[in-house]
């Protein structure tokens, strides 16, 4: 990853107006974000927070009320920019009467590749997404997971530098989600810059370098996972075989916050006291199962950010 900005969004606002809502509904509100080359950036947020609207504006499918977006320093209206990006739409909307081979050949054709190159590309991509065996299955007969993988393959036909993925694991079963996450990690390893939009926080946690938490059209928190989650707040020692009497002895040790159900919670600064505590557990006939310094999960960060935004607004 380097500091070159691949995608820049500045002051982006989108208001949907209609005859019945002349004031309009603000879907995106003064949004700023930037994605650096080689990083995987994720926009997370609840349904209706403006994630998909933002992606559609970035791709030029809809137009902003205010603000601007640039990709590789140019507007999306510049066709050469679209030569360098790939897009996986939410819920994989592709022509359902065609099979994977035909679909990929069609999308590759839109980049002007000759037939021999297209044939080679189709083979490579079907192999990458694990669809070689099902290359002749019409899209409408594909499972949800197969559809999603084909849709990812069509986003890769031009070997894009920037990959924009809208809810890539939406509607997939755990096995499908795992498969898709592996694919995204593989693409990340190949140096792709990825902008990912999702509300599956576990997947985001696994693949992303930076996260922007979007709520009511704006980014309410942004940063790497460690920046957002902060430093570990405590040390947790999980034990087994510790009785109530021994628990009271352990609880009396310096740095120990509480002992409950075999879980010893210690302050984050109490690293020096850890060894005596472990010895006490051992002497009390207990067994140490695990010692950890957990950070808040993305789920915690997400809930905290949204709650904070709601409180500030109130």
């Amino acid at each position: 990853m380097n500091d070159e900005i691949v995608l820049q969004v500045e002051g982006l606002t989108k208001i949907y107006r209609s005859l019945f809502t002349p004031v309009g509904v603000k879907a995106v509100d003064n949004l700023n974000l930037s994605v650096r080359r080689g990083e995987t950036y994720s926009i997370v947020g609840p349904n209706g927070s403006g994630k998909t609207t933002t992606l559609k504006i970035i791709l030029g499918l809809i137009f902003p009320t205010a603000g601007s977006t640039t990709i590789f320093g140019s507007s999306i209206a510049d066709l050469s920019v679209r030569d360098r990006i790939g897009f996986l739409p939410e819920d994989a909307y592709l022509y359902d009467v065609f099979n994977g081979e035909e679909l990929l050949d069609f999308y590759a054709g839109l980049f002007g590749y000759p037939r021999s190159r297209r044939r080679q590309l189709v083979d490579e991509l079907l192999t990458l997404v694990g669809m070689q065996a099902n290359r002749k299955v019409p899209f409408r007969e594909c499972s949800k997971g197969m559809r999603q993988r084909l849709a990812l393959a069509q986003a890769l036909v031009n070997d894009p530098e920037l990959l924009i993925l809208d809810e890539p694991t939406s509607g997939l079963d755990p096995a499908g989600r795992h498969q898709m996450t592996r694919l995204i990690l593989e693409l990340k390893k190949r140096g792709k810059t990825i902008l990912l939009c999702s509300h599956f926080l576990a997947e985001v946690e696994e693949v992303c370098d930076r996260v922007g938490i979007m709520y009511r059209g704006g980014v309410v928190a942004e940063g790497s996972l460690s920046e957002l989650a902060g430093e570990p707040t405590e040390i947790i020692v999980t034990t087994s075989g510790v009785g109530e009497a021994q628990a009271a002895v352990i609880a009396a040790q310096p740095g120990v916050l509480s002992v409950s159900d075999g879980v010893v919670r210690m302050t984050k600064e109490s690293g020096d006291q850890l060894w005596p505590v472990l010895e006490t557990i051992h002497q009390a006939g207990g067994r140490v199962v695990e010692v950890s310094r957990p950070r808040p999960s993305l789920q915690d960060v997400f809930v905290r950010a949204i709650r904070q935004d709601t409180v500030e607004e109130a």
Partner: protein
Amino acid sequence: MTPQLISLIGAVVVVVTLALTRRVWAPAIVHAIPSVWRIAKITVAEARRRRVLQAVVVLVVLILFSMTFFSYLSPGEQSRMLINGGLSAITVFGILLAIFLAAFLIPQELETRTVYAILAKPVKRFEFVLGKYVGALIILAIIVAVMTAVLVLVLVLQDAMVKDLPDSTFNPNLEGVLFAALMNYFAIAVLTGLIMLISTVSSTTMTVISSFIIWAVGSLQSTIHDLAEHADTAATKLLLQVLYVVVPKLENFDFRNEVSNYLHVSYMSGWDALLQGLGYTIVVLILASIFFNDRQV
């Protein structure tokens, strides 16, 4: 100045303007051709796979063959009836297919959101509209060609069956039939362009309803002109004049009467209709591209 001189001057102005501005439009056209062609091809392939169109063609073929059963007519009457009925069937089914095909082409892409993956690629929106239009033209050309071929086959078979009868006056008038069918196809092409324009700004239902109205008005343009001449109020006159100017003159493409009654067919008037239709179609496609360019998808 005669109308011919005005047309000539207009054509020279257009050619000179195009030549002077070629640096502006030529690169766009060069880029557009492959994209338009690929979108047109997939439009045709999709329609072929959906099999609805095949079903309609089979229905029309059955109707055309069933017309040969009117054996109680004299051979002369029978040929007249076959030509008129056959060309009418081609017109009606061709126009109906054009309406339902063109009205759904772009809205369906928006509804199923297949357009997202295409417009995220280096495809300009006008290329998408043109690709869809060319695709529709190819589909309709195939359908009209199949229906015309069946009509010609029916006429040839019927001619072979009755030509040895005493005093047979059966005249298949194949040249006239082919000309009328071709002109019918041009009318369908003009109407398809207009329907696509409407579909870029309106719902599918409204597009279908307005297409039927346009078909009716376009087929009665001389009547509309006469009504405008004799209108009671200024508002009615204005409305009728607007309809006369805006709606394509589809009746100029209709040679059924001349061909089935063995009247003189003026190929020049067909040529005039074709040129007018071409100009009209270029304008509506430019407007469709402009409207679709500004559309939030």
